[in-house]
């Protein structure tokens, strides 16, 4: 995939009301591969921490005999972080306000994440 296509994909996610940023992250090393975010969102920090959550979730899934993790949702008082598994160890991560249209966003991330890679 080329960077222009990634950019369009991320812009599709950030077009949803309440989404503050969308980031393509490598779970293996917790780095930002591509991003579209509002100013002030520390995407590097989000990528680093999201990769930890994803890896822990994968470890839990393995330990409990479940299949692979496809989607991780972290809800907090002031926002939500959702990570959807893509190809080649890439994850599509969205950072949102608490009142985002969560159902629509989850569907979109699930559809778009496999297009990474």
């Amino acid at each position, binding site marked *: 995939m080329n960077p222009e296509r990634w950019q369009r994909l991320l812009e599709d996610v950030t077009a949803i009301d309440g989404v503050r940023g969308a980031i393509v*992250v*490598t779970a*293996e*090393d*917790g*780095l*930002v591969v591509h991003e579209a975010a509002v100013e002030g969102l520390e995407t*590097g*920090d989000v*990528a*680093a*921490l999201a*990769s*930890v959550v994803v*890896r822990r979730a994968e470890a839990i899934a393995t330990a409990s005999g479940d299949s692979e993790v496809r989607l991780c949702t972290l809800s907090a008082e002031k926002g939500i972080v959702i990570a959807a598994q893509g190809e080649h160890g890439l994850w599509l991560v969205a950072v949102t306000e608490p009142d985002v249209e969560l159902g629509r966003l989850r569907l979109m991330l699930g559809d778009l994440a496999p297009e990474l890679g």
Partner: protein
Amino acid sequence: MRVLEPWLAEPLGELVRESSARLALVMTSSGQVVGQHGFTRSLDVMAAAALGAGILATTGELARLVGSDADFGAVVHQGAQQGVWLAGFDTPRGRWVALVVFGRNSTVGLVRMFFQRFAARVREVAPMPMPDREVLAEGFERELDASLRALFGGG
């Protein structure tokens, strides 16, 4: 964890804890060790400090050769089981270097993030340098011994 000066203990401890580092070394850009975590032999620390400072100096020169105004910031070596993060940062005491060795339970991104916080915290809490003193031959060995004891313990 061992530090040469007590104020370094809290930021270095946080870096090690939060990034799940296996080993950590903080040194001046000339390779003098000011803090370490995880090393058990002084010889290993001295070798790692010299190599780390050397690698950073080399990459800085490489950056200059390819036309960069500043150095590369950080150098990462990533292996199958562990990685090494090596980066310089400015402090009130001059430019220092941190070397962090991390395993598969951490990531480059995580180490990078907590290294940035560590560097900011060091800038915040580091006291200003003491005025230069004359180093006398009779005091040199005593001070060197004191530094080694602080970093490795023992009598």
